[in-house]
Structures are given as structure tokens and as C-alpha cells.
């Protein structure tokens, strides 16, 4: 690579060409040509619509009058104002944060435990590893439905067992009860039950994702490092703390950012489990409500923008602190 680059650069620099295209120029053209279908699709279906959302967010638009909307419409900050001061908006931002942090933390923690447990060889490991990935690959609609039925107070197995074997007074509506009062050692705590259930679901569904990445990284840790420590009499927790954890640091950081962003944007899981009720209304579900129930496109757009603004901050952090390191290593 490096050897060929210099003469090419020299050739490219040597004079404007009436001559046939240099290799460098041909490569440039071919590169752009090969990438153009991708760019067109992404531009038309992703980039332009996003720009349009920005425009929509600053205009008073409902679905009825959307035909009359153009680039040169009436711009106004009314939507943003309406959204930021509307009841429930800041609660939903708070809910989104709690949901995201909880789900990110637990999915990575469980993923790490799973990766450590399934690291060594044993009979049937391939099968166990594959089945651990099931929650991640299965269709979200199917798994949310199974959870709903499992946790249902009327015909769910969990509540039935809870009452029969664990001595619950009555069935618990995991997905539709906002708060659950519990007394623990004389303390009364109100647990946000539905929110916790949704977080548990998210941890269940996405720990395999963390597990996959962590296991791949664990298997790339040089064996002799660990063996040397064991010969020196290090206990397993010490090996983990001083040898494995430092090696996993970068992957855990990457996973934290990825999972955080993905969960922050998540719509399907909460919508399907609770419909956004019982204190689980995250911002994306709220946007959907504005869009389909009220047909208030402007307000939906403004809310989506607030969500995106939060995301851009996160992306900036990611690019600033993580991406440079990764690129350096790739070079």
C-alpha cells in the first residue's frame, strides 16, 4: 500500500491531464460510481427526510394541511415551545433516561457474567451459546407477546406460581401497575413496577448482544498471560481484576455507548409491552402518539428533534473519546 502510494501521488500531481486519466483518477471515479447506489438510497430515504423533519418541526403542520407545506412555509418556534412546556414531556425525558441507563447497565452486566461462565470449554457449549442468543435474534413482537402472557395477572404462569409457591397475596400486574408499594425491613418503598419490568425485558433481550462482543474479546486474550498469573498463585478474581478487565475495557466502553444510543431511541419494546402506559412513556413512544393519534406532525417533529439533539451530544462524545482510538488501532 505505502509503496504504491508515492509514485501514484506524483503522477496525479504532475500536470492537469489532457492525457488519459491517471490510475488515481480512475480509481476515484470507480469508487464514487460503486458507492453511488448506496449514497442515493441513503440520501433519499434517510438524509433528506431528516432535513425535512427539521423543517416540519418549525412549521404548524397537521396531516390535513400537509399538502400545502413547502420549503418556504411559515417558520415558527411554536412547536418547540409547545413541546417543551407541554405536560408530561419532562417526565418522559426522565423516564427515557432511567430506562436507558438501567437497560444498558444490566444488559452489559449480565452479558459479562454470561461471557465469563461460557468461556471455558464443556460438552454442549455450542448449543448453550446458541440458545443464549435466542432472545436477541427472535422477533420482538413474538417475545413481547410471550412476556405479556407470562406476566398476565389472569392467565400468566408467573403470577400463578407466585401466588401458589411464593405466597403473594394477589397477582401482580407487572406491565400495567405504575407503582408497587413494598415494605422491606419496615421501610416503605414505592417501586416503579412497570418501568422496572420493561427494563428487565430490555436487559433480557440485549444481554446476548453484550455477551457476543465480550466473549469474542475474551477469547482473543493471550492465554500465556493468564497462565503466568495462575502459576504465580493468583486467585480467579485477581486474574479477572488485573488481567481480563483491563483487556475488556475498550469493548465495554464501546458497548456502553452503542447500547445507550440504541436504547435511547428504542420504540418497539416499550410500545409493545405497555403501550407507553403506567409510567413507561419514553420519548419515542410519545412522538408516535403525537404522530398517529393527534396527527400533529409539527409537534411530533419537534419532539423527535429534541430526542435527536440528545443523541447528537452522545455521538459527539463517542467520536471524541472512542473513535480516534479505534482508528489508530486500525492503521
Amino acid at each position, binding site marked *: 500500500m505505502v509503496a504504491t502510494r508515492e509514485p501514484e501521488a506524483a503522477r496525479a500531481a504532475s500536470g492537469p491531464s489532457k492525457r488519459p486519466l491517471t490510475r488515481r483518477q480512475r480509481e476515484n471515479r470507480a469508487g464514487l460510481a460503486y458507492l453511488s447506489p448506496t449514497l442515493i438510497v441513503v440520501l433519499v430515504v434517510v438524509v433528506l427526510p431528516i432535513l425535512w423533519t427539521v423543517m416540519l418541526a418549525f412549521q404548524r403542520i397537521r396531516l390535513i394541511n400537509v399538502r400545502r407545506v413547502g420549503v418556504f412555509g411559515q417558520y415558527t418556534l411554536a412547536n418547540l415551545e409547545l413541546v417543551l412546556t407541554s405536560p408530561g414531556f419532562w417526565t418522559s425525558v426522565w423516564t427515557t433516561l432511567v430506562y436507558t441507563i438501567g437497560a444498558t447497565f444490566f444488559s452489559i452486566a449480565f452479558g459479562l457474567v454470561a461471557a465469563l461462565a461460557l468461556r471455558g470449554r464443556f460438552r454442549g457449549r455450542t448449543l448453550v451459546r446458541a440458545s443464549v442468543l435466542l432472545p436477541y435474534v427472535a422477533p420482538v413482537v413474538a417475545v413481547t407477546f410471550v412476556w405479556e402472557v407470562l406476566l398476565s395477572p389472569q392467565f400468566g404462569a408467573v403470577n400463578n406460581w407466585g401466588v401458589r409457591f411464593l405466597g403473594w397475596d394477589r397477582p401482580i400486574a407487572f406491565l400495567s401497575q405504575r407503582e408497587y408499594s413494598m415494605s422491606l425491613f419496615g421501610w416503605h418503598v414505592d417501586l416503579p413496577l412497570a418501568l422496572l419490568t420493561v427494563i428487565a425485558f430490555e436487559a433480557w433481550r440485549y444481554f446476548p448482544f453484550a455477551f457476543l462482543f465480550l466473549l469474542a474479546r475474551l477469547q482473543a486474550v493471550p492465554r500465556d498471560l493468564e497462565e503466568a498469573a495462575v502459576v504465580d498463585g493468583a486467585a480467579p478474581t485477581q486474574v479477572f481484576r488485573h488481567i481480563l478487565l483491563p483487556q475488556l475495557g475498550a469493548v465495554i466502553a464501546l458497548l456502553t455507548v452503542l447500547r445507550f444510543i440504541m436504547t435511547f431511541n428504542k420504540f418497539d419494546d416499550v410500545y409493545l409491552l405497555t403501550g407507553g402506559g403506567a409510567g413507561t412513556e419514553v420519548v419515542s413512544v410519545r*412522538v408516535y402518539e403525537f404522530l398517529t393519534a393527534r396527527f400533529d406532525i409539527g409537534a411530533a417533529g419537534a419532539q423527535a428533534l429534541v430526542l435527536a439533539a440528545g443523541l447528537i451530544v452522545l455521538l459527539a462524545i463517542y467520536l471524541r473519546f472512542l473513535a480516534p482510538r479505534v482508528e489508530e488501532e486500525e492503521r
Partner: protein
Amino acid sequence: MTDRATVERRVLGVLRWIVIGVLVVVTVFPFLYMLLLSVRPIDEVLQNPGRIWAGPGEWTLRTYREVLTPVGDGGQGFLRFLGNSAMVSIAATLLTLLVSIPGAYAVSRLRFVGRRQVHFLFLAVYLFPSILLAIPLFVLFTRLGLRGSLAGLTIVYIAQTVPVSIYMLRNYLSTIPESLEEAAAMDGYSRLQTLRKVVLPLAAPAVMANALYVFMIAWNEFLFALLFLVENRSNWTVSLGLAQLSGGIEVSKTVLMAGSVVLTLPIVVLFFAAERLLTEGLTAGADKG
């Protein structure tokens, strides 16, 4: 006194098996529950919700018959939904590959203006909230009359999967030695011929893994199907059909469980058939740091 290392090793040795056991139960049980509930009569489930296992003598396949037969014949019409899902997913997979293979080749091999910026664009697309995209696309497709059509949905899936697809393929393509292509060029192959006859056969495993991955994303997708197709029942995908019907009370839960099995089974079969291929493709590059 035994030393710390021995004690720990013994405790963790036991703990490890407990963890493995819990993991298997927690991940597999919901799917087993789905399968077992789908073959039991509904009144029996309502009477005795805590009972999981029922002998083969009590099994019934009536739930599957009901969920699959067309609406006109008193069923739920999932056979048609399966057809829709398959059509959208296969079309999205093929078109995504058609677009992303040359794209990935360009990104991994060719130096062109704006190559660095392209990476950033893809990352942004991959990480951007799809609900943000949903608003303008909802409006746009309403205007173009594409709402309710499977073609519109397919286009959205392509745009959503192409960036990930390029990223995965690029990682693989960069492991193919460049000298092979130079040799092909010596033999007088054009760039396109080289891509088709030299690079593509070598990258076949990665392309396969990628195809499966895109297929799974398209098959499992819910939000855009909900936004675009909800008013047109004959075009529902399986995911949308199940979600819509499970909200109501008209269809019994065991029939819907049969629907869940029908929705999940193709994915699970594909996944187990190609597990190694997929997990390696997904984490390619992760072990670099």
C-alpha cells in the same frame, strides 16, 4: 488453612454451573412456553395457567389451523402475512446486497474523494433514531400514495440495512489479499469482472452471513410496518398481524401463541443453521479493541 486461590476456584467452579443453568432456563423457557401454550386448548389454559407441561395426548393443532386459514374461512389469515413478510424480507435482502457489495468494495479498496466522510454518514444512519425518520417518511409516503404498499416498506428496509451491511462486508473484504486482484488485472480483467469473478467468490461466507442478517432485520421489523401498513390488512406482515391481533380480545391467546411460533420459527431455524457464520460476522472487528 487453604489458600484463597483454591477456595475461589472451588466456589466459582460450582457457581459457573449454576449460572449456565440459569442462563439456559431464562433464555429458552419463554420459547418453550410459547411452543407448549400454542398446542393446548384455551379453556384448559385459562383454568390452569400455572401448568406448563401437558402430555401429547392433550395437544391440539386446531390453533395452527385457525391462525393460518384466510379470514374469509374464519381464520386469522397468517398464511398471507407470512407471504408478505417473506416477499418484503427477500426483496430487501437481495436489493441490499446488490447495493452494498459494490459499496463495500469501494469503501475497502478504492481511494476516492470523501471516503472518510462516508464512514461518518453510515455511522450516523446506523445510530439515528428510526422514529425521527418515521415522521417524514410517513408524510412523504402518504403523499406519494406509497403508504400501505409493500414496495414502500422494502425501500425503507434497504436504506436501514445498507450501512450495516457495508460495514460488515468491508471488514471481510479488507482481509482478502490485494495481490489476487492485481493478478486478475494482469490477466486483463476489468474492475467489475474482478469483483464478480475473484472477490465475490472469496467473500461468499461473509455475503451469506450478511444476507441472513439483513433478512432477520427485515423479518423482525415492526415500527415501519406499523406506520405504513396498518390500514391495509391484506398487506400486513406477520409481526404487524400478531401485534394488532394481540391488542384485542377477540382472538384467543393460544391461537396467537401459534402465530408467535409461526413468526419465530423461520428465524430460529435460520439462526441455528448458520449460527457460527452469523456470530462471527456480527463481531468481526470487535476483538481488535
